[in-house]
């Protein structure tokens, strides 16, 4: 078990002018036993960063420590890590038992019988005890996934690295395995780095999220933190599903003129905005309120584009009536609420739920208000 420290890690692929910057000056402290999720869209550098920790890639600049040891010069075999790959990477010519024994044979002095005991115990724990004599090719995707996890667990390593381990499973199995990995990590208490592009996995699994984009660290924080207190527009849009709605606009005195409606800033917002001219208003689908009664003084009128019923809730895609460019925003409503396409509806964006971002830099200039529960959630997890 070990902490991991990244100090100004940069990775370039290629040389000179053609070099691609995959990881850009990332510094990070990961505590012993912590479950940290690297999340970001493809090309964000999250996998590269994990591979640098694994020793499968060498950083161009910066230092990597596992525990107190500087491991820059160490290959993967000297780092005492175990990794689960997206395609499982089970050794095709070996049985499940041989797959699970391989690492112990290679990296420890254990005797054959000790290895056998360890492997059998872990296999029982993972529910693959009766598959030990099978070749990977004879197993289902879910079973292969369990073998891959078992192969990592039996090593009893300092650090687990998981590179999108669930992305090849079907939706139902993915949910099950997500819970299972969570439980395993709690039980084993081994420092775990987990790479995913799936914000649901990120939200549900990690103690902390590391949000990356274009190789740059965007935000490091608990899932709740990243959700309620995004540092910029990218994090706000990436965390949460469906994504936060963004309305581009510019300031005229105390009014934000967006495409299709005007929004009057509160005094607190006005002081946050200062003399910023281009401002983006952000509001989450679950916070925006819809009202059928046209007499109520709601902020603006919109037309319903598409309705996606999800059961208890429904996602309604709308366009502001007076809008010029064709762009929809999404609102979560009660699934039982009768609502039809092409219907006109009044929309209110509650002041307390509004985020404001600098239109040029994307930096957050105003965070939503949190009720007391929200404040507790954010501060407790911090």
């Amino acid at each position: 078990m070990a902490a991991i420290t990244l100090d100004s890690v940069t990775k370039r692929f290629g040389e000179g002018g053609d070099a691609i910057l995959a990881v850009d000056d990332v510094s990070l402290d990961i505590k012993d036993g912590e479950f940290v999720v690297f999340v970001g869209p493809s090309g964000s550098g999250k996998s590269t960063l994990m591979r640098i920790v694994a020793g499968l890639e060498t950083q161009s600049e910066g230092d990597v420590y596992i525990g107190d040891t500087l491991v820059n010069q160490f290959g993967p075999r000297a780092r005492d890590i175990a990794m689960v790959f997206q395609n499982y990477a089970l050794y095709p010519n070996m049985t499940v038992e041989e797959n699970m024994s391989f690492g112990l044979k290679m990296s420890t002095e254990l005797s054959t019988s000790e290895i056998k005991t360890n492997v059998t115990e872990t296999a029982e724990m993972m529910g693959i005890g009766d598959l030990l004599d099978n070749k990977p090719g004879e197993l289902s995707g879910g079973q292969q996934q369990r073998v891959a996890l078992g192969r990592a667990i039996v090593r009893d390593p300092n650090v687990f690295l998981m590179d999108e381990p669930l992305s090849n499973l079907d939706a139902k199995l993915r949910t099950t395995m997500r819970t299972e990995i969570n439980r395993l990590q709690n039980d084993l208490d081994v420092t775990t780095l987990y790479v995913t592009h799936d914000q649901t996995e990120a939200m549900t699994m990690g103690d902390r999220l590391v949000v990356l984009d274009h190789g740059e660290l965007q935000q490091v924080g608990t899932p709740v933190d990243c959700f309620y207190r995004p540092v910029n527009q990218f994090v706000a849009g990436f965390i949460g599903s469906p994504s936060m709605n963004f309305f581009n606009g510019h300031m005229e005195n105390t009014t934000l003129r967006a495409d299709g409606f005007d929004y009057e800033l509160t005094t607190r917002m006005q002081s946050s905005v200062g003399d910023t001219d281009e401002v983006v208003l952000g509001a989450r689908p679950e916070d925006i309120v819809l009202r059928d009664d046209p007499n109520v003084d709601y902020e603006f009128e919109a037309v319903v584009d598409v309705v996606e019923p999800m059961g208890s809730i429904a996602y309604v895609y709308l366009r502001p009536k007076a809008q010029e460019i064709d762009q929809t925003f999404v609102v979560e409503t009660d699934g039982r609420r009768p609502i039809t396409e092409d219907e006109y509806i009044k929309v209110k964006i509650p002041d307390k739920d509004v985020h404001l971002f600098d239109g040029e830099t994307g930096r957050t200039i105003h965070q939503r208000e949190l009720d007391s529960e929200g404040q507790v959630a954010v501060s407790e997890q911090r």
Partner: protein
Amino acid sequence: MATADTEPGSSQRFEKGTRETLVTVARHAVLLTWSFLVLFPLYWLASMSLKPSGQANSLPPDWIFLPTVYNYLQLVQSSDFVTAFANSLLMVGASVVLVLLIGVPAAYVLSRYDIPKERDVLVWILSSRMLPPIAVVLPFFIIFQEFNLFDSKIGMVLMYVSINLSLVVWVMKAFFDGIPETLEEAARVDGATRFQGFLKIILPAAKPGIFSVAIISFIFAWIELLFGLVLTSFNAVPVTLFVYSFIGSRSIEWSMLAAASTAMIIPVAIFLIAVNKYLAAGLSFGVVIKE
């Protein structure tokens, strides 16, 4: 009415059955024809080898004859044949081992590492096979003279390696390209060195490919005639040359030619049967999901 209702259904079923039968018959007819085309020359050769020399080439052929092993006895008793056969087995076998030892690691490196001008290297390796052999036999002759390789077994082994190396490198590179790199990475994370990963994980996974190129290399070298003709005289004569010697300037010893040719098939057949399991495994990898 009831019968009228059921009839169309049953007749359709009948028609479907008929069509299936027709497809089966057609398929068998094609396969039988093809088998005949492949097997008849073999039968012709084998039957000729079992006939006395006078009868071997008679037209119309004697379909019914008393088989004799006389030709084979002649062959086995001829020390020239035994020497040539043993020579060829040794030289071809050694060349297959050598070409795999050189070609497989080369293919692996070309597949996995960033080699500058990789494409050019590959084309250069292939260029040895771009000319008709007759065009390169003269330079080979001169080189062999210069390096004292003329009529030597080592020379013949090297010549066979040069014939097969491009095949091994190209096929095995494609094969390694198909094996995900995460397998080696998993092995390295598991504590293996790069070389151990290659040896313990990748080579076993590449077995079907290795045996495929091995058998093809064996056959190409085993049936090679032209270079043997030019580059040997006495010590390193391959079995093909011995077979060729039955074609004289004035007459052809048909039964002996047939017996020697039939005998040449035996090592190839044994090799094929031995590695059949791996060839059947083919190029399929059920295990690894491609990214």
